[in-house]
C-alpha cells in the first residue's frame, strides 16, 4: 500500500517535535453490496475508501490526523497535523528501524470478492426471496442483502513494528414481515464470517430465508411478554450478547482506567458464578470478529477474562497497556483509518458446562426461554444493561409453550453473572454482530451454551 521507506520517513517526521510514540495506519477497503426488497433486486452498490490515520503520543496526549492522500506529501501533511495536535514534547523518542513481522491469519480465504461475479451475488438474493415467500401467504414482505468487503491494512510504529492484514468478510441477511389478524411481525436471520464467497458452499441461503420467515410467522401467534423478574433460559448460540453487555464492555481497560466500570479493582475476585469461564478470542477461525493483527498491529490472541467465576484479566490496547507496563492483548481496534483505536472485543464466548439443556428447561417452573437475543446496551459505570429478545417463549411447568412478542430484558451485570445457576454442554457461536462504542462500529462474534439466569427482569406488558 505504501513503500516501507516512505512509512519510515513519515514516522520520523511525526516524531520531529518530540513525541514519545508515532504510528501510521493505512487502510484500503473495497465493499460490494446488493439488496433485494419488495420482490426485486433494487440495486448493486460498490465502493472504495482508502487512506491513512497518523497518531502521535506526547505524554498523556494523543494527536491524530487522517488523509485520503497516500502519497508521501499527503502522509507528511497528516504527520505534521498529528504532531501539531499533540504539541511539542521533550520525549526525544526516535523511530526504531522498521522490521516486517506478519502474523498468521486465522484462516485462508478461498474465494476472494474480486473473483465473484456481480450476477452470482444477485442470484443468491432471488433464491432467498423465493424460499421465504414459499413459507406461506402470510409472508408479506422480504428483504435480502448480501455484503462483502476486503480490508487491507498496514500498521507501522516508532517501536519498529511493520505489519499488516488482509481481512475478507462476507455477510448475508434475510428479513421477513408476516401479516395476520394480529398485525405485522418481523423475523430476521443473518450469517456472516471472515471468509470469502465460499461461505455459500457451507450455508444454504434458502435455509436462512426459511428460518427468518418462520420466526416472523411464529410471532403472529405470540402473546405479550410477561412483566417482572423471573428465571430466564437462554438457548445455545442465541445469547452471547448477554455477556458482551453484562461484563464484556466493563472489562475493557479504557473503562477501568477512567473509573467507569463496575469491575474496577476486582481482579482475582469471584465476579461470576463458578460455572462461568469467559473468553475473548480474536483467533477463532472464520468467526466475524477474527483477524491476524489488530488495528495497532498486535497479533490476535485468546484471552481468558473470567476463569471459573474469578476475574483474571481485562482487555487491552496499546495506550492502556503501555501505561500499565504490560503487553497489549490484541484488542486495539478501529472502525476505519478515520478513527483512533480503542479497546474492543473480538469473539466473546462462554466455555460449555456440563448440564443437559433439556434438564435446564424441565427444571424451570415458570419463566422465559429466549432462543435468540437481539442487540443490547450497557452503562459500564453502573453495570446496568439491557438486551432485546427477538425470539422467545414462555416456560410453564418445565415446558416451552407460547411464543412471546418482542421486548427488552434488563439487569445489572455483576448481579446477573452471579445468578447463572445452570450451564449446558452444548455450544454454538451466534450470528455476526456490530459492536458500537463511542461512535465506532466493529465486527464482533459471540457464543454461549444453553444457560439459565435464576432471576432477570423481563420487560413485557403482561402481568
Amino acid at each position, binding site marked *: 500500500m505504501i513503500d516501507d521507506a516512505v512509512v519510515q520517513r513519515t514516522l520520523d517526521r511525526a516524531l520531529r517535535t518530540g513525541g514519545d510514540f508515532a504510528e501510521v495506519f493505512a487502510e484500503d477497503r473495497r465493499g460490494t453490496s446488493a439488496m433485494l426488497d419488495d420482490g426485486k*433486486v433494487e*440495486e448493486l452498490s*460498490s465502493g472504495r475508501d482508502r487512506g491513512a490515520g497518523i497518531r502521535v503520543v506526547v505524554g498523556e496526549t494523543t494527536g491524530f490526523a487522517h488523509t485520503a492522500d497516500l502519497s508521501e506529501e499527503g502522509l507528511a501533511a497528516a504527520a505534521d*497535523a498529528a504532531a501539531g495536535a499533540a504539541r511539542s514534547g521533550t520525549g526525544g523518542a526516535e523511530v526504531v528501524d522498521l522490521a516486517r513481522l506478519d502474523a498468521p491469519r486465522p484462516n485462508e480465504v478461498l474465494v476472494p470478492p474480486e473473483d465473484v461475479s456481480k450476477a452470482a451475488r444477485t442470484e443468491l438474493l432471488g433464491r432467498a426471496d423465493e424460499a421465504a415467500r414459499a413459507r406461506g401467504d402470510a409472508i408479506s414482505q422480504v428483504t435480502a442483502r448480501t455484503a462483502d468487503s476486503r480490508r487491507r491494512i498496514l500498521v507501522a510504529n516508532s517501536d519498529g513494528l511493520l505489519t499488516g492484514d488482509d481481512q475478507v468478510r462476507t455477510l448475508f441477511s434475510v428479513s421477513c414481515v408476516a401479516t395476520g389478524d394480529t*398485525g405485522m411481525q418481523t423475523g430476521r436471520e443473518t450469517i456472516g464470517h471472515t471468509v470469502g464467497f465460499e461461505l455459500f458452499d457451507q450455508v444454504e441461503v434458502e435455509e436462512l430465508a426459511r428460518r427468518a420467515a418462520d420466526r416472523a410467522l411464529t410471532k403472529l401467534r405470540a402473546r405479550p411478554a410477561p*412483566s417482572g423478574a423471573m428465571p430466564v433460559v437462554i438457548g445455545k448460540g442465541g445469547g452471547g450478547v448477554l455477556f458482551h453487555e453484562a461484563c464484556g464492555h466493563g472489562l475493557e481497560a479504557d473503562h477501568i482506567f477512567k473509573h467507569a466500570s463496575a469491575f474496577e479493582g476486582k481482579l482475582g475476585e469471584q465476579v461470576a458464578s463458578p460455572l462461568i469461564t469467559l473468553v475473548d478470542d480474536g483467533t477463532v477461525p472464520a468467526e466475524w470478529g477474527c483477524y491476524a493483527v489488530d488495528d495497532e498491529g498486535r497479533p490476535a490472541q485468546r484471552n481468558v477474562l473470567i476463569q471459573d467465576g474469578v476475574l483474571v484479566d481485562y482487555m487491552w490496547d496499546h495506550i492502556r497497556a503501555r501505561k500499565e507496563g504490560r503487553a497489549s492483548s490484541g484488542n486495539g481496534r478501529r472502525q476505519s483509518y478515520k478513527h483512533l483505536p480503542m479497546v474492543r472485543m473480538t469473539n466473546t464466548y462462554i466455555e460449555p458446562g456440563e448440564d443437559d439443556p433439556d434438564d435446564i428447561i424441565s427444571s424451570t417452573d415458570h419463566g422465559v426461554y429466549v432462543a435468540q437475543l437481539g442487540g443490547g446496551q450497557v452503562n459500564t459505570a453502573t453495570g446496568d444493561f439491557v438486551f432485546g429478545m427477538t425470539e422467545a417463549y414462555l416456560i410453564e411447568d418445565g415446558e416451552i409453550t407460547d411464543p412471546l412478542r418482542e421486548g427488552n430484558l434488563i439487569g445489572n451485570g455483576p448481579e446477573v453473572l452471579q445468578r447463572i445457576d445452570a450451564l449446558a454442554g452444548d455450544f454454538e457461536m451466534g450470528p455476526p454482530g456490530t459492536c458500537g462504542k463511542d461512535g465506532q462500529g466493529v465486527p464482533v462474534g459471540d457464543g454461549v451454551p444453553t444457560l439459565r439466569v435464576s432471576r432477570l427482569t423481563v420487560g413485557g406488558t403482561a402481568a
Partner: protein
Amino acid sequence: MNDLLDIGDSIVARAGDDEQVEAVVVRSRQTEIRAYEGEVESLSSAESRGVGVRVVADQRQGFAYAGTFDEDAVGEVLDEARDNARFGEPDEFFGLAEPDGVTPPDIELWRDGLGKVAVDDKVQLALDLERSARERDPRITAIESADYADSEDEMAVVTNTGVRLDGRETSCYLSVWVIAGDDGDTRTGFGYSVGREPGDLDVDEAAGDSAARATRLLGATKPSSERVTVVLDPFVTAQFLGIVGATLSGEAVLKGRSLFADRVGEEVAARRITLVDDPTDARAYTATRNDGEGLATRRNVLIQDGVLQGFVHNTYTGRRSGSASTGSAVRGYRSTPGVGCQALFLTPGEALQPELLGRIGDGVLVADVSGLHSGVNPVSGDFSTGADGLRIRNGELAEPVKEFTIASTIQKMLRDVVEVGGDVEWLPMSAVGVSLAVADVTVSGE
C-alpha cells in the same frame, strides 16, 4: 465550495443520452477534542471527502462511491455505477429528482466564525467543560468523557435532469458524561450544549446538567412492576418521536412495513398531538436547506390534532405512491437516498415540567432510556426499553428508581398521551424535545 459543483458537473457531463446520472459530492472538516484530568487526552483534526454516483438506465438503478476527489478514481466511480445498473431489476418508478419549483428556505446554517476560532480556544472549551463538571458537586467521582467537536459540512448534488444545488452547514457541540458516587451507589449523567459556532456553546449548562442528572439518581432502587403514567423527559421524548418518524416513512408504507399505511385521515393519536417534520426551521440542529437528492426541504405536517395527514417521501417513493417527493431524501455519499424525517417538531403545550407533574399526580419520570434499537420494533409496534428516573408522588418528584423497563406499543402510546409539555428543548438529534406524559405504560422491575 464551487469546486464541489465543478466535480459534480464533470461527472454529469459524461452522461449518455439514454441514462440519468446523479453525482453527490461531500466534504467535511472536523475537529474533536477530548479532555481528561486537566489535560488533552486526544485531539483529532481531519478532512473527509467522497463522491457517490447513481445511474438509472433502462429503468434499472446502480450505485458506486469513492472516498476521494482524485480524478481517475472519480471517473471509475461512474463506470462502476453504470456497470452495477446492469444487475438491478427494472422498476418503472426509478428515476432521479427533477426541479419541482420549491425554493429552498432562506436560512443560513454556515458560520464563517467556526473556521476562525483557534484550536487553542477549542481545547480550552473542552478543558473548562471537564473541570466545571468535576467541580460541580463533591459526589462527582469521575469524568468518563468531556468532548468538544465541530464540523463544517458541504454537499453538492448535480444531475442531468436539471438538479444543481449545493449547501453547507457548520455545527459544534460540547458533550460530557459524568459518574457520581455516594454511599456505595454509582449513577451517571450526561450534559451537552450545541450550536453553529463555539460562541453559541455554554459550558456551565452542559456541566450543570450532567451533574444534576447523575446526582439526582443516587440511591435509586428497583421499582415494583405495575402500570403507571410515565412522563418522558424531553431528551427521551425526542428519541420516541424518532421512532414514530420511522413509521411514517414513505418507503415503510410502500413496502408494507408501516403501522400507519392506509390510515391517512384517521385518528391515530391523542387530539393534542400535532407532529410536523420541519427541517426549514433554523433552530433545529438538523435543519437543512436541501435534501439528499438536491430538492428544497419543506415543512411537512404528519399528524394534525391526532389525525394522520401523510408520509414523507423521496423522489422514488413519491412517484410510486402517486404523489411527489416531500424533500425528505436522506443519505451520505456511500449510499442511494433513503427516506426519513429530518427535524421532527411536536407542537408544545403550555405547562412546564413542574406544572405537568402536578397535573399527573402519581407516576414515574423517565430520565433516560436504553436499548431502543433492541426492544422497539417499528413494524409490529412493540415498545420496550430499559429506563431509570424518579417516582412522581403527589405531583412532585420523589425517590429515584433504576433498572426497570417501560413497555407498551407505539400505537397505544400515541393514543395514551395525556399531556404535552411546554418545555421545548432543541437537541443534537433529529427531533425536538418536550416533556410528554403517557398513561397506562407497564413498568417492569422486581
